[in-house]
């Protein structure tokens, strides 16, 4: 069993890490760096979830964020004028609105934290969190999660079909090119 002071120390390290990297997301000058700082911030939050005893959720958060941040970085670079995302650029726009929005959401969230009555009962030892989560996901809440899962899977397959270059003229690896026009033929 990990001693409590070590858990407390790790909590402080992860919290500071999450805050500092979260702050760096907006202070850095490149989209790719911002995505990776955000990933580091999420990984630290995942570490805090593991410390709280939600091992499975914490690790899955870290696992999912790796893929999502990479896709985000690639997408952002695709839509930018500087192709590699290494040239300096401003990461913040509409400064006044951003400040108002940031301060407003900070006040709301801190208010929610202060006003919420958090449970203080400590976790019973040897609680099978992962098993309970599985029973919850495939028990009472099964319909909700399975519906969402099938919808997401259908979305994934649809996106892959749309993004793949297999057109009506064959697959991308064969060129997927329109055949040349023959004399007296209607254009395709």
């Amino acid at each position, binding site marked *: 069993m990990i001693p409590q002071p070590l858990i407390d120390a790790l909590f402080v390290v992860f919290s500071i890490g999450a805050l500092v990297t979260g702050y760096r997301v907006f202070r850095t000058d*490149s989209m*790719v*760096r911002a995505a*990776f700082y955000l*990933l580091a911030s999420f990984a630290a939050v995942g570490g805090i979830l593991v410390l709280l005893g939600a*091992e*499975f959720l914490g*690790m*899955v958060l*870290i*696992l*999912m964020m*790796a*893929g999502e*941040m*990479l*896709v985000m*970085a*690639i997408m952002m670079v695709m839509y930018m004028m500087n*192709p*590699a*995302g*290494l*040239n300096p650029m401003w990461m913040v726009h509409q400064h006044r609105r951003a400040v108002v929005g940031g301060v407003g959401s900070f006040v709301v969230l801190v208010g929610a934290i202060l006003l919420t009555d958090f449970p203080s009962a400590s976790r019973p030892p040897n609680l*099978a969190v*992962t098993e309970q989560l599985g029973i919850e996901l495939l028990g009472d809440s099964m319909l909700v999660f399975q519906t969402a899962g099938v919808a997401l899977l259908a979305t994934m397959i649809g996106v*892959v079909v749309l993004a*793949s270059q297999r057109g009506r003229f064959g*697959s*991308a*690896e064969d060129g997927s090119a329109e055949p040349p026009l023959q004399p007296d033929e209607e254009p395709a």
Partner: protein
Amino acid sequence: MTDWFIAIMLLGVLVAGGPWFVAVIDAAVGHVVAGTMASIGGVATFPLRRGARLISQETTRTERPDVGGWALAPALLAGLAVLALALVPFGPGLVVADPSTGFVVYSAAVAFVMIAVFLHGWSPNSVFALHGAYRYGAVALSFQIPFLLAMLATALPAESLSIVEIVKAQESAWNVIRQPLGLPIYLVVGLAVSFWGPLNLPDGRDLAGGTSVEDAGVQRLLWELARLLMLVAVAAMGAAGFLGGWWGPILPGPVWMLLKTGLLIAILASTRHLFARYRIEPFVERCWVVLIPLALLNIFVSGVTLL
């Protein structure tokens, strides 16, 4: 506690000896395929001589690179490989870390390999390196699903996500027999995870070295070491997940574990000289239309046999 120290030492053996073993197998198969002669001593010391040559080389730098990311990438990749190796049990109780969600931790490590490779290709601010990074991002999203599905099927007979439990459940029959589809899928995609041999798409010769095109000297040495270590991690996890881990007659458990890991390393490493590089488009397509359905079938069949 002594078991834990023995596990740490065995981990050290794999981390230090594994990359050397991969490089030796690779060089030996290369000599056999090419029909050239080489002394055993020459092959055995080849990795050390290459390392010494790289250390004495000058490192290069590019215009406006991301210095931090460039330095971090090999360390991140090697760290992920060691993280995966720390989850591998060498015998009953002989494991560095046994979280109840070991499989998920391994999945997260494999997912972060994408980040390490992308960072390595993106940071030098170089065209071919960035191409390699994009390639790995594109194929990784395709091959990670069959890779993790093949590995996930091994958790079904164990009824646990812990790697130790997965090995324990193979006492009567190894998963390679119970789930014949699992190991082939795992090995094929494992090559892509550790970007080696026919599936070395991000660092391929067709991109003049891909993400490592700008690496020289110590930087290249560290990246190659990290790559080899990742291959060792994939092989060790394959031995634990499919080849019964420490189970085996006569010899003690850790010896069996090292032998099985060595066998998988030999299979994976020798592909570099035995198979031509696979092109990226057909690989991505085969991942989606062949490997994922096969992996799902594997899970379905092993689930039905357990009912």
